[in-house]
């Protein structure tokens, strides 16, 4: 399994990786990282991840812009948001564009794993 983690914060990418590593289901996954939506778009083409975990607010291309670009291309891998600023409007917009979940920061490893379980 390959998981793409998209966040402009290196620290947050480390936290997501560590949370996934604690999971018996996802601990052995190959984890790829991107710093923003633009970089992620290229990696999705090159690496074909099984799931994308993305922050919402990032420079260059935000997470929602990434998801909208994928939706427009007609090829969206399983996709979820890991974000500090979840609101009902953001949730609705994410789901309307094909996201499977939105996990709020801070999160526990169990919460993140459960979200992935529901998406995959």
């Amino acid at each position: 399994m390959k998981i793409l983690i998209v966040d402009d914060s290196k620290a947050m990418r480390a936290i997501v990786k560590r949370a996934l590593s604690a999971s018996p289901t996802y601990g052995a996954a190959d984890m790829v990282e991107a710093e923003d939506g633009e970089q992620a778009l290229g990696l999705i083409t090159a690496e074909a991840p099984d799931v994308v975990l993305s922050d919402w607010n990032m420079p260059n291309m935000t997470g929602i812009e990434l998801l909208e670009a994928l939706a427009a291309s007609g090829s969206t891998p399983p996709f979820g948001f890991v974000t500090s600023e979840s609101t009902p409007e953001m949730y609705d917009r994410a789901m309307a564009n094909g996201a499977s979940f939105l996990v709020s920061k801070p999160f526990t490893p169990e919460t993140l794993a459960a979200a992935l379980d529901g998406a995959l």
Partner: protein
Amino acid sequence: MTQNIDVDVRQIVHDIVTTVLGFPIEDATDPGTSDGVLVTGCVHLTGGFDGSVTVECAEQLARRATAAMFLLDDDEEISESDLRDVVGELANMTGGNVKAAVGAERLSLPSVTAGPGARITVPGTELVDRLAFRCEGESLVVSVLARPVSGAAANGQAAQAVADR
């Protein structure tokens, strides 16, 4: 008139520090006026609520937080870039949770400054709340700032509230 907020910022900070850093955290009563080195992160909220959230970490706390986030040993060097990233992310998480609670529409990317007594001031805002904590024996102070609502805007809001009744 200053925008009022009904947000439990203390609980937000407690949740972030305990969940993300794994550090115990205690409420403190006095933010103090430390001239020591601070690492301060700031995010801005706009749309529905216009204001800012700042997170001031004593440098040693910022270093310990960085070591915890990156699983560094005590003798491993901590880069300035990683230090700022961590404090920026703490500000991002705090501000993001405040954003969701106050109904703001947009959250900025964080900005971070560091140095002796390095605090961030945001012109045009007023202090709504300033909360002090002790974490790993060091100071952590979180502030919420809000742009005052103009008299015309306040009157418009009051008129709409009457019309809605």
